[in-house]
């Protein structure tokens, strides 16, 4: 059973896709769309403002992750895939660095002093 968090993220993803250009949505294989529909939350109703751009919509992190999968698997070409993955890896490094700085024991002691 997929978690509630993912079910809700799938509901948001489907809501985004309902407001996405048909020609782009048509590139997603019907079997994958069916899978999303079957696993979407039956109770969660997304309230998204589609006049906003994706990065301003305050989407759940898991929604962004599923949309990223769709983008990478079905929408982008090889060059775009390389660039996209590089960006995600850069984000990974930046997040790790941030965490290291936040939880660095030396820094904690410094604060406590």
């Amino acid at each position, binding site marked *: 059973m997929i978690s509630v968090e993912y079910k809700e993220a799938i509901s948001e993803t489907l809501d*985004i896709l309902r*407001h996405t250009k048909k020609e782009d949505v048509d590139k997603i294989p019907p079997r994958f769309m069916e*899978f999303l529909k079957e696993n979407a939350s039956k109770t969660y109703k997304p309230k998204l403002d589609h006049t906003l751009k994706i*990065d301003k919509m305050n989407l759940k992190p898991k929604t962004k*992750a599923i949309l990223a999968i769709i983008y990478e698997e079905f929408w982008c070409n090889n060059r775009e895939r390389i660039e996209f993955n590089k960006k995600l890896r850069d984000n990974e490094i930046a997040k790790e660095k941030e965490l290291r700085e936040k939880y660095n024991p030396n820094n904690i002691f410094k604060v406590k002093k």
Partner: protein
Amino acid sequence: MGKIGKNLSNTLYKILVRDITVENIDKVFIDFELKKDDFLEEIKRWDGLRVAIYRAQRVMREKYDFEDFKKLHEQDKEKYDEYETIIEQEKKKVAKDAEEILERLLDEGKIISTVKEIKKGEKITAIIVPGQEKNYPDSKDGCVEINGSEDMKKRTIICINGKYYAYPDPLAASLSLCVNEFKLFDDDIELLANQMYNTKAEGYDIPINDRIFFLQKLFPEYRDEIAHIMTRYGKKGSFYIYEEDDIVYLLRESELRKKEHTAEEIGQGTANGLSKGEEEEAKEALIRAKERETKTADEQDLN
């Protein structure tokens, strides 16, 4: 051919596209009584008030679900003041937007009057739009002489680049001419706004409901906005208090509301802040769910 062309399925369109040719079009005929500077001055004076009110009402509706703005100042002074503040802010924005759009359209020669009113005593020779000869029994060599009416009813014809064209519905015909012959507009909104402006410019005493219906048929995506423009602020069947920039603005707003996401935008939006690890975690979760789904189906088959 753009979206408009594809949407046009009526005979009128086909006739116009197939037969009309206008050669040596050097310059779009600009038939404005006001000079550009005067016109822009007029826009500043107008100051976007009506559109600002429209926007302020929308903001208030979204925030408070409040409908009766006329009674707002009596019922809730605080909300009324907030409403007034929004109007003041929006007025500045709207006036700037409108001015920019008009500056550009005027510079590009895209604001044109495509209808000419024939004054009393005036005689105009007009080319009959092919296929419409039966409506002009007095025609000769594909042309007809049209006289300014003696009665109150105005006579209008299409006027583009100094040439006159006769068609029973100038708005409908000029729409096709603008799209197909002159390719004057960058997008549907500019075209629609210009045509609605021309409808208004034709005069208030001419019934225009058929034309509104026609425009709604051609631009189904702006159906509500066309109806809104017709009924909400003006007299029914008249655009008389609307100017072209109001219409452009309302349609742009509508476009924004109906905005569709694209693959590219989704790619850029998701890459912003998402880590590779988060994406892989989601991928694994979906794969696991899919595997369980398959396993359950297999088990059901075995049973």
